[in-house]
């Protein structure tokens, strides 16, 4: 079970943030925009990560990774660079939706008091 720790952690992050896509304009609901935002940044960080691994700046505990490897790194590390920014985008999406809702409510209250 231990070797799934890193993958489970990433899965948990996706699961917890999934409902945030249902508010506001959504993130997964704009796949093209999501891809265009992710791809360049992920590419840069993957290069950084591959260099850091090759230069032995950090490494992964074989006990807690699946053992599935993509070029230069464990599968988990590749997924990390996709999952974490998506969680950030979903958070930002939900905060925007929340602030917009608060603003409309305030407007309605102001309208009513004016009448």
């Amino acid at each position, binding site marked *: 079970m231990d070797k799934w*720790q*890193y993958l489970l*952690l990433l899965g948990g*992050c996706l699961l917890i943030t999934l409902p945030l896509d249902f508010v506001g304009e959504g993130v997964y609901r704009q796949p093209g*925009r*999501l891809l*265009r*935002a*992710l791809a*360049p*940044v*992920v590419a*840069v*960080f993957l290069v*950084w990560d591959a260099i*850091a691994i090759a*230069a*032995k*700046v*950090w*490494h*992964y*505990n074989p*006990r*807690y*990774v699946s053992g599935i490897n993509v070029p230069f790194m464990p599968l988990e590390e590749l997924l990390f*660079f996709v999952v*974490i*920014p998506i*969680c*950030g*985008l979903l*958070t*930002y999406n939900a*905060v*925007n939706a929340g*602030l917009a809702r608060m603003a409309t409510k305030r407007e309605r209250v102001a309208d009513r008091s004016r009448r």
Partner: protein
Amino acid sequence: MIGLGYTLPAVVSVIVVCVLELAVLRTGLFRTPAYWISMGIVLFFQVLTDGWLTKLSAPIVIYNSEHTSGIRFPWDIPVEDFLFGWALVTGVLLLWERQRVKR
């Protein structure tokens, strides 16, 4: 403890993201309350997840102490991780926002 392998690129990544926004993209993201509230929430969850990944008692990611500042806070999280994470998430948010400006 020279920090060249992680500390330096982590600092550089933050500078690059700032320059990208201020000189190139100019989305105005840094002036929106939604961004800073989001970063506060992201930071909270980063401490939980990163804390789990880097805990010295059973680490998933192991850092070469030669390449970090050696400052680990809170718990055993190398402080460089916060710069790295900020640059990663903010970089993607900027490209996300830029597509709003364009439309």
